[in-house]
């Protein structure tokens, strides 16, 4: 089921410069959501911005009926979002899209997250650990002030490795270097990736070479967010091998790395 609801904001607090965490009371959505899915959020009571904003579900608490979002203020919509006060209402549609998947066979997996792409990997890690997997959480950011949610991964019990561009926290370098190391030392059954496009491309390349199955979460500008407008497509190889477009909002945002085609 997909819902279009007014939900109550329980919390909306700054967690890092530019990053906010918002908790919504949305039991219907929390009951059905899976990691990797997202919501389409109305950021203003007026007709500007006109389009809703896609924000991934970062944590799902089905028991308490809450959904946590983590977002970065980058433009007018997220700015309006950051000004909303707990107790007020916000219109959301969701849960949308196909989330991450895992199979019973998998034993050791890695999640690779960069920037605000780390957000949806929290819920994923929680589920993977519940399912008894060993999880490497490889997190990257420009600097310490932009590194999201690392303590959640530690609390959950993942093996956390961190890289920052300037070395202000964790290793100096890219998160892909961490992945390379893990691949070289450990037999990974699956990699999950969410982050900026250059990172995603590098992760796809590495896992392909290492023959490790990989799932990537993609972003594209969205109109409807539900699959109706064909606005958010990405190029994929169809089963017969020809190129075609799939909808990030509906067929994704999570794709297997083998099907997506990146333009250079």
């Amino acid at each position, binding site marked *: 089921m997909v819902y*279009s609801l007014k939900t109550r904001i329980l919390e909306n607090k700054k967690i890092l410069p530019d990053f906010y965490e918002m908790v919504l009371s949305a039991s219907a959505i929390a009951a059905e959501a899976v990691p990797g899915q997202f919501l389409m959020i109305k950021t203003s009571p007026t007709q500007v911005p006109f389009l809703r904003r896609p924000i991934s579900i970062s944590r799902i608490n089905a028991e308490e009926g809450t959904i946590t979002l983590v977002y970065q203020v980058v433009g007018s919509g997220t700015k309006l979002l950051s000004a909303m006060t707990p107790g007020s209402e916000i219109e959301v*549609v969701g849960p949308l899209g196909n989330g991450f998947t895992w199979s019973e066979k998998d034993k050791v997996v890695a999640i690779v997250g960069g920037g605000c792409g780390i957000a949806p990997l929290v819920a994923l890690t929680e589920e993977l650990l519940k399912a008894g997997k060993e999880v490497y959480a490889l997190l990257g950011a420009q600097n310490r002030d932009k590194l999201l949610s690392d303590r959640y991964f530690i609390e959950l019990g993942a093996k956390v490795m961190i890289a920052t561009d300037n070395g202000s926290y964790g290793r100096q370098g890219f998160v892909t270097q961490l992945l390379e190391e893990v691949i070289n030392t450990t037999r990974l059954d699956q990699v999950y990736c969410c982050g900026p496009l250059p990172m995603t491309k590098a992760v796809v390349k590495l896992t392909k070479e290492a023959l490790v199955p990989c799932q990537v979460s993609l972003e594209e500008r969205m*109109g*409807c967010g539900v699959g*109706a407008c064909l606005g958010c497509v990405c190029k994929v190889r169809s089963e017969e091998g020809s190129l075609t477009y799939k909808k990030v909002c509906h067929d994704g945002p999570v794709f297997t790395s083998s099907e997506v085609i990146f333009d250079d």
Partner: protein
Amino acid sequence: MINLAVEVAGIKLKNPVMTASGTFGFGREYSKFYDLSLLGAVMVKGTTLEPRLGNPPPRIAETPAGLLNCIGLQNPGVDAVIKEEIPWLSQYDVPIIVNISGHSLEEYGEIALRLDGVPGVAGLEINISCPNVKHGGLAFGTEPQMAADVIRTVKDKSRLPIIAKLSPNVTDITEIAKAVETAGADAISLINTLLGMAIDIKTRRPVLSNIVGGLSGPAVKPVAVRMVWQVAKAVKIPIIGMGGIVSAEDAIEFLLAGASAVAVGAGNFYDPLAPLKVIEGIKAWLEQEKIADVRELIGAVKIC
């Protein structure tokens, strides 16, 4: 009892609220939100003879109170639509209007022919905003003669009601409207998107892959209402009004201007329940104003 039913081009609608082509797919997605039988009609995604890939992303750019799109008519082609989509959508008790596009008169004719007699299809909406390859890429919809030719061609090949969907990017919309009326159109849809452009100042590139795209949403509503009003005075066939409708008030504005029915387009993105809210809002408003029949509103704007 309040009457919400209207008839457009011989198609009987439970209420005057449709969903606009290209904003509602073939109905599958929004069927997860509500029962599609509640709608006046569904106008499905623009359908072409052959499957089309459409334009590369980005295909959407947000603009003040609206959006630009350059989807580029991505669709599985008319045969797949007949085989996969129409049968599925026919399970709902809602008239299906198929929006069709072609690069040549022959293409328009052929699609119309294939859709003729397909169970569930209630009418054809002819998108004449497409570039005509034979005439150097000029859109069919910007020249009265060319627009009329398209309508005559599809009328010839199909017994279905024919709705001409006009482009607003013209000097005189009434000229085109009169031409398609004379050519036999049973109704007119107004408006398609306005041609627009947005530039990302950081990258210095157009936001859309196709450089330019179609503007729709509340931003264009005043242009759409004006064109509906002008065309309603100029022709006798009914008009389906669209352009920026998100609320019942918006829809009523179009009805007063002269539309016999309306369609919600980008409004579906703004609020997936928008079409239902428009229907319920019209009903509530009629009750409040003690108007027994929605048809009393059609063209009822008072000019003095």
